[in-house]
């Protein structure tokens, strides 16, 4: 061991709380920038988007062409009583509408398809990001809030894309066209006519950040509501057993009311655009009327031109009024996207790094001066050093809250040490790719977790080599590992249906499944964190045999309170108040446990 101890001062305590992320730096990015980021996420849709734009454009042209053709027919044929021409143009119009029908269909299919696919990829991206993040992240965020982000916020983005975007673009097309024509007909009058639009633009720029913020608040409150519901539903049995149904109602009422007031605020904010835009449209018309008449009096303009000018003003301001509602939905989508991109911008703090090679060790697992603290917590481990050899059995004992589970979590690299080094097989544990590490280290967690499914699915969860075995073959593997007597405890064996929630299956049975799951993976180091605490002692003896049946080189780490589960250990570590001390003998350990200072 080298003399100099290198402390890797850890910058790796990360704030993963999504609702407490400081929104200083890049969060102030403009709409355009975050829109660009969003578009980059749906890169493969770019061609479809262009196709859809073409369809929207054709559709807009066709819908402008219709009234023009009708006007032409009236002027040219109906007024002149030429019915043949009327029929010809009716036929042309019909043909036009058939084309419009097809284009319209295509446009809806394409834009809607883009929206749906985008929703799909966004949800996948968010879920995938969740999978990349460490356990820390889940300790700092609430399940209900995350669900709300994945399902509700992505849907808000989708709603804008599949429903509003095509109107948005269509409106902008028509508006720009009408605006240009206005300026071409008469520049001063055109400028006058467009001036309210300019004011609206300033108003919009001024008010949009507020609208977005209020919507973000409303979404955050929706997330909180969702978290509240989730927590209460998951903990419902305590609510029933303590007859605190009123608790559920009260807590919910608070969140519900908060959500209500925030949503009303957001709703009103989203609705300020329409009346203002309408007012601007009316103002535009008034200006044109007054200024136009003034120009006519001055002899610069004619009544005929004024009438068509007013028609174009309507053509300009009607889409602008539509834009009002669309702009609100754009702000909602942007607020939702911010919430999503905040999540997407998080990175795991458990990166794979190069082995610094500053410590030599022949042991299978080595702790050197390891200190650890949870974010915002006090130090749980302080300068802990120990070695675990291949093929030996170690017991970690100590009072609750002493740091046993934390030590085990560091062995499995659920967290990184704040200071010091953890070495696996002589190399820094951080230098192993996750798949190699998880192959070597098995960890039966204190709280067994089952996925809704069958026992088979659960014991093979994350087990690639055995996944495709038939039940027959699997039974052989299970027999070989001496696990069949455990499996017998499930009514339908491998096909027994289990649920994540609910009490159809006991905690002890869940522990049995977790045990089988870990043993079948044949890890080189197996940690049992009070993994058999709720299993009866007779069955536990059976588990002991199974553990002994593991390959000779397997290292076992057992955390337990029951003394009989640890008496066969080769070495016993006493873990208390941040220190890990090697106990000389079993008797020693028991003395420490029974009479030692309990600082938990």
């Amino acid at each position, binding site marked *: 061991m080298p003399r100099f101890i290198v402390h890797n001062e850890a910058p790796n305590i990360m704030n993963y709380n999504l609702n407490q992320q400081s929104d200083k730096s890049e969060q102030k990015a403009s709409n355009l920038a975050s829109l660009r980021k969003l578009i980059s996420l749906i890169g493969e849709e770019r061609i479809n988007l262009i196709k859809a734009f073409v369809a929207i454009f054709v559709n807009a042209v066709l819908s402008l062409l219709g009234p023009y053709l009708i006007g032409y027919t009236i002027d040219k044929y109906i007024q002149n009583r030429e019915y043949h021409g009327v029929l010809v143009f009716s036929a042309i119009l019909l043909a036009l509408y058939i084309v419009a029908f097809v284009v319209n269909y295509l446009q809806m299919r394409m834009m809607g398809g883009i929206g749906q696919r985008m929703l799909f990829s966004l949800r996948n991206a968010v879920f995938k990001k969740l999978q990349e993040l460490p356990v820390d992240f889940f300790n700092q965020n609430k399940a209900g809030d995350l669900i709300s982000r994945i*399902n509700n916020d992505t849907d808000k983005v989708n709603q804008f894309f599949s429903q509003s975007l095509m109107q948005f673009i269509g409106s902008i097309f028509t508006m720009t066209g009408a605006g240009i024509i206005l300026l071409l007909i008469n520049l001063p009058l055109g400028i006058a006519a467009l001036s309210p639009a300019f004011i609206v633009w300033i108003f919009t720029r001024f008010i949009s950040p507020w609208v977005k913020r209020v919507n973000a608040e409303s979404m955050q409150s929706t997330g909180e509501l969702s978290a509240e*519901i989730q927590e209460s539903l998951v903990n419902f049995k305590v609510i029933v057993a303590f007859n605190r149904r009123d608790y559920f109602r009260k807590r919910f009422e608070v969140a519900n009311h908060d959500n209500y007031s925030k949503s009303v605020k957001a709703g009103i904010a989203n609705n300020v655009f329409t009346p203002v835009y309408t007012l601007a449209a009316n103002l535009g018309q008034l200006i044109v009327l007054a200024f136009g008449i003034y120009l006519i009096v001055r002899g610069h303009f004619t009544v005929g031109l004024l009438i068509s000018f007013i028609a174009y003003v309507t053509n300009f301001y009607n889409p602008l009024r539509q834009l009002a509602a669309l702009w609100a939905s754009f702000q909602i989508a942007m607020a939702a996207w911010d919430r999503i991109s905040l999540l997407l911008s998080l990175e795991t703090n458990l990166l794979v790094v190069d082995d610094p090679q500053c410590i030599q060790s022949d042991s299978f697992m080595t702790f050197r001066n390891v200190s650890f603290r949870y974010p915002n917590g006090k130090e749980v481990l302080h300068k802990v050093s120990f070695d675990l050899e291949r093929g030996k059995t170690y017991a970690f004992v100590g009072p609750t809250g002493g740091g046993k589970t934390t030590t085990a979590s560091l062995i499995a690299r659920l967290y990184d040490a704040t200071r010091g080094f953890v070495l696996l097989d002589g190399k820094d544990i951080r230098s192993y790719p996750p798949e190699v590490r998880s192959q070597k280290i098995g960890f039966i967690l204190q709280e067994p977790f089952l996925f809704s499914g069958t026992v088979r699915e659960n014991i093979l969860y*994350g087990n690639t080599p055995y996944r495709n075995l038939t039940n027959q073959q699997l039974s052989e593997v299970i027999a070989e590992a001496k696990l069949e007597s455990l499996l017998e*405890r499930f009514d339908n064996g491998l096909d027994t249906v289990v649920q994540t929630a609910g009490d*159809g299956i006991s905690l002890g049975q869940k*522990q049995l499944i977790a045990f089988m799951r870990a043993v079948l993976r044949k890890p080189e180091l197996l940690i049992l964190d009070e993994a058999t605490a*709720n299993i*009866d002692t007779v069955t536990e003896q059976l588990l002991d045999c199974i553990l002994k049946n593991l390959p000779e080189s397997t290292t076992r780490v057992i955390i337990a309170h029951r003394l009989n589960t640890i008496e066969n250990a080769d070495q016993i570590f006493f873990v208390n108040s941040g220190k890990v001390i090697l106990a000389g003998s079993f008797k020693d350990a028991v003395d420490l446990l029974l009479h030692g200072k309990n600082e938990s």
Partner: protein
Amino acid sequence: MNANTMSKPTIKPSDSTGSKPGIFSLLKPYSGIVILLIIMSLLGSGINMLIPKIIAKGIDTFSAGNFDRALIVYQFTGAAAGIFLFTFLQNIFQTYAAERVAKDLRTQLSDKISRQSYAYILKSNPSRLLTNLTSDIDSVKMFVSQAFVIIISSVFVIVGTSVLLILINWKLALTVISIVPVIGGAFFIVLRKVRVLFKRSREIIDSLNKIINESIMGSALIRVLNSQQPESIRFLETNLVSRNLGLSILRLFATLVPVIMFVSNLAVVTILALGGHFVVTGTMSLGNFAAFNSYIVLLIFPIMMIGFMSNIIAQASASYSRINDVLDSQLTDETGTIESKIRGDIDVKDVSLFYGDKPILKNVSFSVKAGSKTAIIGPTAAGKSQLLYLLTNLMSPDSGTIEFDGIRADLYTKEMFHSQIGFVFQDSVIFNMSLRENIAFSDKVTDESLDKAISTAELSDFIDSLPQKLNTVVSERGTSLSGGQKQRIMLARALAINPKILLLDDFTSRVDRKTENKILCNLLNNYPDLTLISVTQKISPVRHFEQIVLLMEGEVIATGKHKDLKESSPEYAQIYSSQRSTQHYEL
């Protein structure tokens, strides 16, 4: 009522067709604001129709030479101000109405859910209830805030314009109006199809919720096993179903909307061809023809709006019927009337419990004297926890009775019953609240009983070591606490209500031996009259209990004191001997 037959989260769909309340009935309690809303919207759009008139009048009077600038400006400004005011008010009422409906529906739902039995929550699946309270309500909200007014005003405009058209030329009008039933038919067909799809897509959201939820609850396991990839695939598969459903719905609407527009455009062509014919043959004036042309635009626009809104209506209807399934669900009524205090005599008589066909408990009988201590031991999955659930009334037995002081448990009022029975669950249930709120979970807990509970559970040292003591907020799922700390918090929570009966479900499994002994000692000293029933794996701490019940595969194998069972029951002896090797170390 049993938990493991819930693989399909089907809550008896109240599909007794016909009697189902439609989405519009939802607005009945809000008729006041809804009427205001409609008035505002009609006023707004009514005045809006005046604007072209004012402009026309301005131009006409100007051409005629008697142009009154001030009058026109006043009229115009007045109209513009009116429109501004009424659209603004309409929007505010609309927002307010939508959020009120959402809030009240949520309150109704939560009220209903909070009164439901534990079994109902398990059966209906929390993921689904979460969707009900969030996404489903959102759809309904969209309906109120966007679709409702548009539909009302659209229908209004359609009827109005139709009347105008008939007045101008009934022959042409009837031809044109004949498109309305065609469009109605198209709606009917598509909406009927899409309804099923929307319902399915909501159910897929339920499953997405469930997958996300499991991936969060199991996040540590997933990382230990490095199975993030399969998790993502699992999510992707369900998400794919969701996308395909979305695309199928889209296909229907992408057909419906163009069809509606095309049919409306056909009306335009008809007017041109047929109306043109009338004008050419002289049966219709050119002016009337022009009017017809402009009114048809007025007719088509609301039809198209209804087309766009149909999506929202269909979605909201599907969601509303899901919400109604929950609101209409049966409540287990409060049957109890007895308010008396419980002394603590417990009689379990011939109790059986089934999950589906599988017996969990078979004719279990035993009795417990007030103030005595009973241990229930037995192998994993013997039915011990379920027995405790029955004792707390979280579940009801399929046959047999459980009596407290000779009175059936369900005859007590819930309030009375639960305030006297403390239950420490096997798995830790921790709320994201302060420690104080977690422990003093009932509002009847006094500071004194809180302190007593905390010191009995040996939590004082731990709490004192925290900077914010009892006000420390615990994270969701208690991730900031060790297993033993969580278990002791659960114990303190049960003790804080000063129960007459305490049920412990394997509670010391994560507490070290020394602490466990202290806690048992504290219990005896601080709560001397307590009737204790403890499910446990370890015999030594309960050796001195008045009674030990040995439960195996749902049956009571033996009952008695430790020293008798040791001799009389071979099963008990076997369990005992499996723990003996370390016995001499234990206090």
